[in-house]
């Protein structure tokens, strides 16, 4: 809710600032023209930030995302040697490679965590729905 309010304040604020800088530019200061281009960019960036804030699954970003990544990366390497050696089912090299790739590439892990969340719950929770 606070995020929506912030955006509602931010975008018109940028528009006002842009208009103010147009006035500065018209009064002869060329820097005003530069900043009158800049402020709409800040408005757009604020909108992008808000969009992410509202739509991201909180389990895949921030501290919770990191904790989840660590939990997802740790078990396979710990379990492999002892538990799967006895019945001839050798550690699946694909799974091992995936765990390593995930630990190396947070984006991949994030995506896989997202897929896992999707398979558990068809509607992933977002910051908006809390």
């Amino acid at each position, binding site marked *: 809710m606070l995020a929506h309010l912030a955006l509602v304040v931010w975008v018109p604020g940028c528009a006002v600032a842009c208009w103010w800088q147009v006035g500065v530019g018209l009064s002869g200061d060329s*820097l005003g023209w530069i900043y009158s281009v800049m402020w709409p960019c800040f408005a757009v960036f604020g909108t992008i930030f808000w969009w992410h804030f509202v739509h991201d699954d909180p389990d895949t970003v921030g501290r919770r995302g990191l904790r989840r990544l660590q939990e997802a990366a740790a078990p396979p390497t710990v379990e492999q040697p002892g538990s799967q050696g006895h019945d001839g089912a050798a550690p699946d090299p694909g799974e091992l490679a995936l765990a390593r790739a995930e*630990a*190396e590439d947070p984006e991949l892990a994030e995506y896989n965590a997202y897929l896992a969340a999707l398979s558990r719950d068809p509607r992933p929770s977002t910051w908006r729905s809390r």
Partner: protein
Amino acid sequence: MLTRYRVMAYLTAVLLIILVFVGIPLQVEGHPGVVNIFGTLHGFLYLVYLVVAFDLTRKLYIPVGRTLLVLLAGTVPFGAIIAERKLTSEYSKQTRAARAVTGPDMGTETSGTAPEQA
């Protein structure tokens, strides 16, 4: 990923320091040239800084509040330098943690080639 953020952080920081501590006093004295040049440069580089910093904070799982501070750091003299120190230590912390999980063979690869290319 980290390298390009560090480059942008230092660029915006140095330009802003020049702008504030050299440009503004000169403008007050009636020489607006420095402010015009460095103001424009810092303005556009700050936009690039925003994009690069936002990308890095997401990859490092930085919480929202701290992300905002990192983004705003580009507008405060010396702020971007402080943010760069924090994010770099966070990055090496996470790289070390990933190395502990994946084993030393993958770890050297992670700390060596991957960050520069990402």
